Every structure is written in structure tokens, then in C-alpha cells.
């Protein structure tokens, strides 16, 4: 099992930004720039040519067969580029990769799906594109269809599928790949929570079979659950490579990753004071689901679960919410009229702070939680970066953003009441 599966040495990838990448160069552009160079003018296109971006710079690591490696980092840190290089989609500018074994990559769900073809035809198409043999697809066909739960519609063109069915079928094909090395981009972010759970379970199964897996995700829970090792990329360079615990901690402390649930089952490690100890901090929705992806329009609950150890004390929970630039957005103390000033007898408690919908801006929110005993005041514990979540706007048109998809600044994003009226008392100027 100690055989090296992937050896990466001094890997770099350079992209040229500007004319070439932004728009497709036309022969005309080329002729024009050639002509202007001829006449000693127009340095514009030459400036473009020198406008290069290193998506990945001097990255080296080696992965043993059977290792499950998570890759984390902020958007633009080079994660996708690394996956594209490993999966041979694009070629390195410098450096070298040695891969031993059959590679399948899953950078997108449903690559090659054709809307006009039926579910059955697409399973074969997608399967072979992802590197399966047709016989292999035939063997697993029933399993794939059952996993996706689309038995009745398998001979219907996929253009008639709901988006959920489409994604489930696409993922089901991918989930049945059996390469020696599997490269997976953030594909677990599809479908509903139940399906995501199913996918994660499937991935764990794949990992248990001794396959080498590279797994990119923003979901730190999934990363820590699946991976035995995590590589943290920052600005195209390898910042940290180590155990999930250490790397994810560093990452979360840099205010980037998200983590909807933190639990402390071991009483020794749990944050605590004399009067109480922390059990868990969770981020959830009104529907009672824990999630690190929060719809901007929906309230989000920060749940603090703790155990009171001493009798006769009064408590006050608090949260501090920061955005990804580490700007403190607000502090909120517990304000539940039913419990204010009341003694809490020993036992388990759950305090939930509800941040209203249409209040936070889009992006990553990092939450510190603390619990104090009051009268007399006693700081019990404070957990920095306890949980983090992403606020997302689906741009359905009913948020403050409306249908506008461009950059939208601001620390908060309230949905204001706007009123409009046409003033009919003035005559229109011509």
C-alpha cells in the first residue's frame, strides 16, 4: 500500500490573461497587431501578452496509493487548476507529474449529457466519457438507475427531467466509477440534503476500497470526514500539507472555510468553565437542517448546545459574527424573555440565535460563540471561529440584489421596503 500513486514536482501553470483568454483571438486581431508592430505602434496587444497569471506555482507533493487527499483553499487559490493538471485536461507550464494507475476525474456532474438523448443513452455516453467500458456500464446499469431513483423515466429524453432528476442521474453515473485514482471537484454541492448525504456515503465507500482520491471542497465537514490528509493552497502555492485536523484548523482561522457543525464529545477537549461545558455549535435553517449553505432570504440559526454543571447559576450566551474580511458585523447577547434572569438548573441546554433573512450579505460568515455566567459575572468559555457558513443568493429576483448578478458590495444586505409612485400632477416636459 506504500506505492506512490501520484508524484508532483515543482508544478507550475501559467495563464495568459487578456486578449487570448478573455475573448477568442481572431485572425483579424492577429493581422492588426502584426501590422501595428510593423509600423512601430500599438503596444496594447504586447502588453496583453505579458499579462500573465500563475495559477499554480512550484507545487510539490507525493501521494501514496489509497490515500484520500482533500484540497482546500479560497476561490482562485489554484485548486481547480491543480485538478485539471492531475486529470490531464491541461498541460503544466513547468514541472512534472507522474501518475501510476487509471485516472478518472469528476470536475462537473453530467459532462457530455445530451438533452435529446434518453436517460439510458446518457448513462452509457457519460459512463464511457468518464472512462468506463461499456460492459462495465451494462453491469452497473441497474445499480446506477436505482441510486438515482429514476427507474420510470430511464427511457425518456433527459430534457424532460426535472433538474433534480438530471443531477441525481448524472451523479449516480459518476459515483459508480471505479478508477484507481479518482479526482473529484466540488460535486457534492448538488441536490438536496438527503442526496448529498447519500453521495458522501458513496464516496466513503469508494475511499474504503483502497482507491486514491483527490477531493476538493469548501465543506470542511466533508473534508474532515473523508480525508486522511489535506493540502491547503493559497495564491497558487502549497501553504500547508498535513492532517485534516491541523490544516482545516489553520484554514478556518484564516477565516475562509465553512463548517456548519462543531461538536465536542470528549469532555477533556470541550471548551468549558466551572459552571458549564460546551457540547456543540451548529448552523441551521428554520426547517431544522444543519447546513453551511444559507439562502440569503432565510433566517439562519446559530445553535449553542451546552451543559450546566453547577446549580444556582444564571447564564448568557453570545455570538460575534464576522465576515470573510474579518470585519465584526455585530455582537448579540442572548435575549430570550422566557429565560432572562432565571436560574438554569444543571442539564443540557440549547440556545439558538436567529439571524433574520435578508440581513447578512453574501459570502462567508464566521461566528464566535461564548457563554458567560452572570451575577456574579464569570467568563466560562469563548470559542473563536466556532462555525462558519456561506450566505448565498440564488438570484431568483426577490432578494435585495434582484436579478442583478454583478458585484454587490456592503457589509449587510437588508431587503428594504421601496415604494414608487408616478407623479401625475406635473405635465411632462417635451
Amino acid at each position, binding site marked *: 500500500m506504500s506505492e506512490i500513486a501520484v508524484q508532483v514536482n515543482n508544478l507550475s501553470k501559467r*495563464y495568459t490573461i487578456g486578449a*487570448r*483568454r478573455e475573448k*477568442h*483571438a*481572431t*485572425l*483579424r486581431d*492577429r493581422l492588426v497587431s502584426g501590422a501595428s508592430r510593423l509600423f512601430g505602434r500599438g503596444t496594447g496587444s504586447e502588453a496583453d501578452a505579458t499579462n500573465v497569471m500563475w495559477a499554480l506555482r512550484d507545487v510539490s507533493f507525493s501521494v501514496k496509493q489509497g490515500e484520500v487527499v482533500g484540497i482546500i483553499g479560497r476561490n482562485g487559490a489554484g485548486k481547480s487548476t491543480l485538478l*485539471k*493538471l492531475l*486529470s*490531464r*485536461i*491541461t*498541460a*503544466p*507550464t*513547468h*514541472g*512534472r*507529474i*507522474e*501518475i*501510476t*494507475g*487509471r*485516472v478518472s*476525474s469528476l*470536475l*462537473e456532474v453530467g*459532462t*457530455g449529457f*445530451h438533452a*435529446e*438523448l434518453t436517460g439510458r*443513452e446518457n448513462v*452509457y*455516453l457519460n459512463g*464511457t*466519457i*468518464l*472512462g468506463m*467500458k*461499456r460492459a462495465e456500464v451494462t453491469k452497473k446499469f441497474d445499480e446506477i438507475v436505482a441510486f438515482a431513483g429514476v427507474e420510470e423515466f430511464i427511457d425518456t*429524453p433527459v430534457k424532460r427531467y426535472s433538474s433534480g432528476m438530471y443531477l441525481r442521474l448524472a451523479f449516480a453515473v459518476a459515483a459508480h466509477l*471505479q478508477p*484507481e485514482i479518482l479526482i473529484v471537484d466540488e460535486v457534492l454541492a448538488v441536490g438536496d440534503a438527503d442526496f448529498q448525504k447519500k453521495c458522501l456515503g458513496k464516496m466513503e465507500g469508494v475511499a474504503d*476500497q*483502497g*482507491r486514491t482520491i483527490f477531493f476538493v471542497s469548501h465543506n470542511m465537514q466533508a473534508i474532515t470526514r473523508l480525508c486522511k490528509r489535506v493540502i491547503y493552497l493559497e495564491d497558487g502555492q502549497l501553504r500547508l500539507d498535513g492532517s485534516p485536523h491541523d490544516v482545516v484548523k489553520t484554514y478556518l482561522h484564516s477565516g475562509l472555510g465553512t463548517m456548519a457543525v462543531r461538536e465536542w464529545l470528549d469532555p477533556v477537549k470541550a471548551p468549558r468553565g466551572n459552571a458549564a461545558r460546551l457540547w456543540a455549535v451548529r448552523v441551521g435553517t428554520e426547517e431544522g437542517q444543519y447546513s453551511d449553505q444559507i439562502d440569503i432570504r432565510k433566517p439562519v440559526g446559530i445553535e449553542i448546545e451546552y451543559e450546566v454543571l453547577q446549580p444556582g447559576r444564571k447564564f448568557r450566551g453570545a455570538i460575534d459574527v464576522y465576515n470573510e474580511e474579518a470585519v465584526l458585523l455585530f455582537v448579540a447577547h442572548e435575549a430570550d424573555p422566557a429565560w432572562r434572569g432565571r436560574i438554569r438548573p444543571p442539564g443540557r441546554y440549547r440556545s439558538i440565535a436567529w439571524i433574520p433573512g435578508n440581513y447578512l450579505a453574501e459570502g462567508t460568515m464566521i461566528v464566535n460563540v461564548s457563554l458567560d455566567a452572570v451575577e456574579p459575572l464569570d467568563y466560562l468559555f469563548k470559542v473563536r471561529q466556532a462555525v462558519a457558513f456561506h450566505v448565498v443568493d440564488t438570484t431568483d429576483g426577490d432578494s435585495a440584489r434582484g436579478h442583478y448578478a454583478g458585484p454587490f458590495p456592503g457589509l449587510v444586505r437588508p431587503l428594504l421596503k421601496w415604494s414608487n409612485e408616478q407623479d401625475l400632477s406635473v405635465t411632462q416636459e417635451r
Partner: protein
Amino acid sequence: MAQSESIINSPRRKIILEKRSGLLRIDWAELWEYRELLYTLVEREIKVRYKQTAIGVSWVLLQPLIAMLIFTAIFGRMAKMPSDGIWYPAFILTALLPWAYFSQAITRSGTSLVSSANLVTKVYFPRMLLPLSAIVSPLIDFLLSMGLLFGLLMYAGIPLTWKVITLPIFILIAMLTATGVGLFVSATNVKYRDVGHAIPFVVQIWMFVSPIVYPVSLVPERWKLLYGLNPMAGVIEGFRWALLGKSAPDPFMMGVSIVMVIAVLIGGVVYFRQMEREFADII
């Protein structure tokens, strides 16, 4: 466990990715390994082509039939184009079918990479499979439409001879030419979309420099060498020879054509390999 066994037993190939690989190194083993993907891509193209059409595959017969009628009316009747004494509809259809195959093959392969950009940027496979599948898939249309031609020959009372068995040779020449051109065009189209716009014109011009509406006997003797540079001239002459009993194609002209085919093919492959590594970044 059966699954883990298959991992251990499968031969493990080492892949090395570096900045530069050889000029004309085609990984034949890899192409062979991916042959099923080629079938699948061909199958996809064929299936998708006639989905949601009312008369479906009938188009394969209708298109050459209509073209034959139009060409016969304009060139045969109105322009009184000579046809070496052969009944004009048979004369033109014998040329139109291999030409239709060829023009379909270069048009479809020329745009194959760009129209499958989502595949190119999301998954690895030998990129050559995309233009290749577009070269193969119109063969099916071609074979079906050959039925139409045989029907027409029977109707005209032109007997089939042993020469029919040489047809695959000429089709092979057409395929190889289309492959060379298709590789070149598709790779260029990734970077310069102008190519996509230019293809229809090139195909049209190419059609008129091929002996389709007119017989090759109309070409002055001193131009024959130059004319032979167009491999499709040899292909069409070959078809007429094999099916209509016309005189055999000029062996010198055929020789020039074959040299040309090989040159185009090698050039296409080298160029494609050269451009291939950039595809995903610029497509």
C-alpha cells in the same frame, strides 16, 4: 472482493505529464484503450442527428435525391454540361455521394472540438477522438445513400461489375483526406473562430474544383498535375470508373493524389498534436 482484485490485477501504466512531448508521438495504445469512447461519440452523433425530426433517417436519401434533381436540371439540362456520354443523373449522383460524405466529414470535424468545448475542459481523453468521430459518423449516412445510387443505376440499366469492390479504397482516400483536413481545421478553430465561418466557403470552392458537375475530361491536359493535388478528384473519378464504366483514373494523377493525402494526414496530425496541449486553456 472482486473490485479490489481488478485494481491489483490491471496493468498499471505510468503517465508522465511534462511541458513538452514528442512531435509525432501518437499514443496508439491509449487510442486503442479509448476505442469504446469513439464508438460512443459516433453513436451519439448519429442518434442526435435525426432526433425530433418527422421523417428521420429519410433525410439521408432525400438530401442527395433533391441535390441530384437540382444539379441535373441546372447543369444537365440548362447548361448542357457534358458528362462523357453518361446519363446525367447517374453521372452527378455518383459524384455527389462521396462528395456529400467528404463535405459533411470536414464540416463536422472542423467544428467538433469547439462544439464539444464542455468535454474538452472537463474531462481527459485523446482529443483526436472528437474530429475522428465526426469523420466516421457521416459514413453511415453515406452507406445508406449508396442504396439510392444502386437503385438509380439499376433503373438506368447500368450493370455492376467487379470494379465495385474497389470502392472502399476510394472511400478510404476520402476519409484520410478528411481526417487530415479535419484535424487541421478543428485545431485552428479552437483558437481562431474565423475558421468556423470560412468552412462553408472552402467547401463550396472545393466542390467546384472537384469534377462533380463536370467530367474531368473538361480539364486541360497541362492542368492535370495541379488538378491531381486535390485528392477528391481522384476519389470521384474512381467512383465513376468503378460504377459507370468510365475510363480508369489517370494513374499519375492518382499518384499525386495519394502523396498529397499522406502529406495532409501527417501535417494534420503533427499540427493537432502541437496545438492539443493548449486546447483546454483557450477553447
